[in-house]
């Protein structure tokens, strides 16, 4: 194994590039690996909406060429969002100030983390509403609603596919966060834009979060703080 003690961070660049040929590992030419990049975001480091819209449009058309139905398309977008959710959860927890750096222990804490911190990170605003399902048959369903999801802004859905909601990608991110935190769930996106209240927000989307049985059991079992 590499027995040379490696000097911390930047000072070790010269020795690292010398050992490159022995290890068979390639370093970028300025010697900076991913471990040198800072984790805390500077205020001005935001992504342009145009680049995201371009990439997302390409993602949707890539998926559309390969699937046969709407369910499958939504599933593909969901699968693409899932690993992002996993990574974002740890990153956002790291960026929290140490006093509030706690893992969510119950469903409400997790959903509040999602609707405030995650939504603010992704869309610069908190989510619009968080509701618990009032249906007694499904006590484990929660709904996060967003009046105008950013991802759908430049996606035009033809009339024959109007059950499709490309916010399935964001649903995948939310599902990744839930799974990472230890609350396995299924998250789907539904458009409720056309209706009585739909006239104010035609693109309104509701994310339905359905937790699995063991989460509900554990929730009931743990003492309520």
């Amino acid at each position, binding site marked *: 194994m590499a027995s040379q003690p490696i000097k911390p961070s930047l000072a070790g660049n010269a020795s690292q590039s010398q050992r490159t040929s022995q290890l068979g590992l390639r370093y970028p030419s300025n010697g900076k690996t991913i*471990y040198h990049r800072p984790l805390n975001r500077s205020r001005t480091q935001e992504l342009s909406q145009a680049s995201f819209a371009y990439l997302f449009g390409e993602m949707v058309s890539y998926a559309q060429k390969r699937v046969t139905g709407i369910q499958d398309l939504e599933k593909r977008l969901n699968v693409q969002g899932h690993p992002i959710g996993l990574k974002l959860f740890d990153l956002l927890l790291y960026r929290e100030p140490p006093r509030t750096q706690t893992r*969510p222990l119950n469903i409400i804490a997790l959903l509040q983390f999602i609707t405030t911190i995650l939504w603010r990170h992704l869309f610069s605003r908190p989510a619009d509403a968080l509701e618990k399902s009032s249906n007694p048959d499904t006590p484990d369903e929660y709904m996060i609603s967003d009046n105008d999801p950013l991802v759908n802004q430049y996606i035009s859905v033809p009339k024959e596919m109007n059950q499709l909601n490309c916010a399935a990608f964001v649903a995948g991110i939310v599902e990744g966060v839930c799974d990472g935190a230890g609350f396995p769930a299924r998250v789907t996106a539904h458009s409720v834009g056309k209706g009585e209240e739909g006239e104010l927000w035609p693109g309104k989307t509701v994310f339905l979060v359905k937790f699995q049985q063991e989460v509900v059991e554990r929730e009931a079992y743990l003492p309520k703080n």
Partner: protein
Amino acid sequence: MSYYFAIIGTQDNPLFEHEFGTSKQGGDGIARFPEQARHMNQFIVHSSLDIVEEVQWGGGQMYLKCIDRFYNNYVSCFVTGGNVKFLLLHAPSQPAGANQNRASTSIAANPTSPQAEEAIKQFFTEVYENWVKTIMNPFYQVNMEVKSPVFRGRVAAAGKKYL
């Protein structure tokens, strides 16, 4: 004063392991586990996973202090957001004779003292920062083994700095 550090994934699979010794008070940073104890370290660390799972739902903090003790080995734990556990096993060695008094206040000899807990917390925080950088790699999928020599170097440097 030897340490065995392991990162355990969500399926209880080890993702990364590292042995090192203390660099404080004249230690040279090399682990000194007796030969037959080396493979026991893995068993001890994995058997404390049950206790980690019990304790992690009791409080929301990420650093759980010393959670388990097996004869002379103490296990402390840090749980990340993604339910990945960092486990550190420390085995204070017993120096014979006259050194006993001087060494008894050091971090390595007293694994449950507040200074030791603070030092271990700082070590875990630094490893957590490098861990978040590792998982942000778009090619890293969850529960993959961490093979990067840069990561290993960073963990070793953190160990040298705090422990």
